[in-house]
């Protein structure tokens, strides 16, 4: 990808992922998230995987997760009800 401003999906598209289709390693409870006013996850996730949908509800896709743990550290109201590393061999594979 040439040097220009890239959006998150473009950047994630460069990475090698082995997505675990059977088990999500991070699970959120949207009812808790709905009550969270700050929603820091929207800006601190480097992969921008936490988004607001049209109804103002948080949506999250674990498939492009870089496994940094920032959302876990920042989630104040515990809307993230499960945060684990992906099962062995699954998730991101950094090649460099």
């Amino acid at each position, binding site marked *: *990808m*040439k*040097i*220009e*401003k*890239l959006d*998150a999906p473009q*950047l*994630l598209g*460069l*990475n090698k992922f*082995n997505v675990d289709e059977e088990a999500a390693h991070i699970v959120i409870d949207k009812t808790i998230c709905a009550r969270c006013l*700050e929603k*820091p996850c*929207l*800006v*601190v*996730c*480097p*992969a*921008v995987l936490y988004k607001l949908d049209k109804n103002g509800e948080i949506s999250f896709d674990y498939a492009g997760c*870089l*496994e*940094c*743990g*920032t959302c*876990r*550290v*920042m989630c104040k109201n515990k809307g993230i009800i499960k945060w*684990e*590393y*992906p*099962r*062995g*061999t699954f*998730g*991101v*594979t*950094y*090649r*460099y």
Partner: protein
Amino acid sequence: MSDTEKFDAIIIGAGPAGSACAYTLAKEGKEVLVIERADSPGAKNVTGGRLYTYALEMVEEGLTQEAALERRVTHEQIMLLDGDRSINIDYHNPAFNEAGQVPHAYSILRARFDEWFASKAEETGAMVACGIKVDELLVKDGKIAGVIAGEDEMYADVVIAADGVNSLMGQKAGLIKDISAASAGVGVKETIELPAEIIQARFNLNNEEGAARMILGCTEGIHGGGFLYTNQDSISLGCVFMPEEVARHGQSVHQIFQNLKMHPSIYPLLEGGETLEYAAHLVSEDGFRGIPGKLYRDGFLMIGDAAGFVINTGSSIRGIDLAILSGIAAARAVIDSQDPVRVGPAYMQELNNIGLIPAMKAVEGYKDLLEIPRIYTSYPGLAADVFTRLFTVDGQVPRSLRKEIKGLLKKNQLSLWQLLKDGLRGYRSI
């Protein structure tokens, strides 16, 4: 695996801490199993980054010569950005990395380096099992007796957690709590491919020489900074932010970093290159004060990032070398303790003996210096203003520099008093 089969040590994580520990243990004939959740060592790991090579030499003299390294760092640079303006300081000391001596520091890429280091541990006799995630610790009679991975139970005299900054194993052992948002930064990085000759020309480097650059003023005033390392045929460009301040600021980590990449003083260094990969990782920011109160319990030790071993002085950021030292210290403790109960206290002693704890304590105060918000909000702008004034000749009668600086302080919402106070605080903390 049967219950009777028992390792001398099980190490969780094949990063630099885990591999240094495994190497040292295996060399002494210990039965060691390293369990790594990635397909290959390094594939989950991220650095800026560089390795200070003295640590590898402590594992084994001469190891640096065969290590998977990128460029020996001979140019140390500090860059200040404000808007489109920039100031770059380049410290070049040819004697710093003279041939015939072990170079001081190398840039590295973790997928290559960690895989090499784990393979060295394997050659020495350690067993490295990749693609396996440890799910739980096995507790027997209050002692950590092994690990559980899926259906498998594996036993060892000591389990060593080398599972990184976000150490779930340390939490499961009850030694650490959730990481507080104020104690970790989030780092992002693009690895950008460029031909070696172009990198050398753009950074004024000979052959395998390399540059390392810290960048201040690229974080929208958020506590944090950028970094750039030249690899053999790629550039690592990244940025670290305190996530709490990002949340308050409102612009995303991703967006601010993309702006840095396109800065008029950064983009020309990258132009024509190709982004290969986008990575992210947490980095511990508390230094000595962030080391957990207890790094061991019966049958269990924590090493590397899991134990909070990171030093950030602003000019040098150290993690991998400390990880390696802690791996050696843990191995020595295991080797020298006949009684398993003595391993934990012996490890603390070895951390002191090897100089890790004293080194971290010596620079403890730098955290106070780096917490001065004006370092990120005002000082890069003030510096750029001063330089603008110094280099502007427009035919007007110049004002005295003293008056000019007074005006520039005001423009940057600073006072002389504030400047002196920060100077004193800085002086006290170093």
